[in-house]
């Protein structure tokens, strides 16, 4: 089958570079350039204009963020609040659903299909329908909570509950991911520990806390890792539904950075905010990876 052409001989001598070079070069151009640019700009002050050139300011942007910028500190707190609340909600719900679904029944395929829909549906469409459902005067949410004697609420137009209301949307979207991941994890659990636990007369609750949960820990942490990374960076839902409002009540770091960079065109300051956001994402990821390895 050997064609014996120069190309084949060349790829045979250097298979790894030939195969990986195109993708590595494109990834490098697409991603390394912006990273270097952002790092460079984060220590400069520059409004996107051709009249002035970037001015080196050292760490002044970072100092400004942490010491003088109330809006940044608000955004940092809201990012942590939104991420914590959303990941906690979907983790508990997702694992609980997986445990309920982890039994033989007919129509598993249908259930799986239904679970996929929130995850793949277009975020703008999701944001839109939730805006409609959350509408204080005509929304179906106030009608539904009214049936059980609650509300009416102003949902995303109330500064006090806008973040939980947005976390509910994220939870709706991503609980299925946790459920599907957990179900996959449950399918690989060994039977022996349960058999000996039954012999020892353990209760179902004991088996859950002592066997299932510890064995599932690695799976759950990977799911948590993915959700935490994405929650920290959530943009579409928040931007479409509230644009960070009312006031700045739902302005997370990502939304704030967007406004600073692409609305006020303060590129230098936006770049330093991006460095902080990336550090936050990286920090959370490393912490979770450490937890997964069991060193904590």
């Amino acid at each position: 089958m050997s064609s014996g052409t120069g190309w084949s001989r060349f790829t045979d001598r250097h298979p790894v570079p030939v195969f990986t070079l195109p993708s590595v070069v494109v990834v490098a151009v697409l991603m390394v350039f912006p990273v270097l640019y952002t790092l460079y700009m984060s220590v400069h002050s520059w409004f996107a204009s051709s009249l002035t050139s970037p001015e080196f300011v050292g760490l002044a942007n970072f100092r400004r963020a942490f010491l003088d910028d109330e809006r940044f500190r608000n955004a940092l707190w809201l990012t942590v609040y939104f991420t914590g609340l959303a990941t906690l909600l979907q983790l508990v719900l997702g694992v609980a659903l997986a445990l309920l679904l982890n039994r033989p029944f007919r129509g598993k395929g249908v259930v799986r299909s239904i679970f996929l829909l929130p995850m793949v549906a277009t975020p703008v469409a999701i944001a839109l329908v939730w805006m409609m459902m959350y509408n204080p005067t005509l929304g179906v949410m106030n009608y539904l909570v009214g049936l059980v004697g609650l509300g009416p609420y102003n949902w995303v137009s109330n500064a006090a509950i806008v973040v939980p209301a947005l976390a509910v949307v994220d939870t709706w979207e991503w609980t299925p991911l946790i459920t599907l991941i957990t179900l996959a994890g449950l399918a690989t659990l060994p039977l022996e520990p349960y058999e000996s636990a039954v012999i020892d007369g353990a209760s179902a609750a004991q088996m859950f806390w002592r066997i299932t949960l510890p064995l599932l820990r690695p799976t759950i942490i990977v799911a948590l890792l993915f959700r935490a990374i994405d929650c920290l960076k959530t943009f579409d839902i928040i931007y479409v539904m509230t644009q960070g409002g009312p006031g700045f009540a739902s302005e997370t770091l990502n939304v704030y950075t967007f406004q600073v960079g692409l609305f006020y065109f303060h590129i230098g300051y936006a770049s330093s905010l991006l460095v902080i956001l990336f550090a936050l994402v990286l920090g959370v990821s490393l912490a979770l990876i450490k937890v997964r390895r069991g060193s904590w």
Partner: protein
Amino acid sequence: MSAASSWRQDRVNAWTYVLLVVLLIPFLFPLGWMFLSSLKTQVQNTAYPPVWIFTPTLGNYREVFQKNPFFTFTWNSMVVAAGSTGLALLLGLPGAYAIARFKRTGIALAILTARMAPGIGYLIPWFILFTKAKMIDTYSALILTHLIVALPLVLWVMIGFFEDVPGDLIEAARIDGCSHWAAFLRVALPLAKPGIVATGILSFIFSWNNFLFSLIIAGFKTRTLPIAVYSFLSYEEINWGGLTAAATIITLPVLVLALFVQKHIVRGLTFGALKG
């Protein structure tokens, strides 16, 4: 099994199904509500308490297509999604194959880090560059920015699929005199075909759904569907029927595509980390 215990079993089953339906309703409801609202008139959509039973109308869909260049938006979305997916597969497939076959996990990990960085970090520098190059509002600029999502996705998900290709088959082809390139084209690619289709569809969905990059890079000529729907929102009086009709039009193709690749969705959404 005695009659009594099988009866008890049936009852447990019945409860399982009741529970299932109750649990699934919240996950279906918002999308169902979106669809229902798209079939209602503005009066029905603004009624309180909400209208549950009504005569459906297709008027909103007609209006969406008559009042807006919705076919153009759809075409733009398709060009960008197909373009970025095609390029990502072309560049990514050989790379993923080599990383899987020659165990170059270092490269793979570097690309995974790219998944962690916030999208705006890529967007701002590219926006400035594209502005200088007068490339804002062009398909090329949109496709390039969407490639930032698509290429790492293809690489990571396909590494997993190529690892599933039995190494013995590749070895056999090599012993028969196949070059690495021929072994890739004639053995690995055909065997990984289901994975390639799934990855392509996932990459298409991600591009189709993309909001952030298109919001900034697309202008009036290349406006994609999500941006079109977002811009409807800023009209003076919100026409819920029209909006939900537009949202349904965007979402429906994605939902249908997703059902085709449902076995591989978790793998795609977790970047190949979990085979779910």
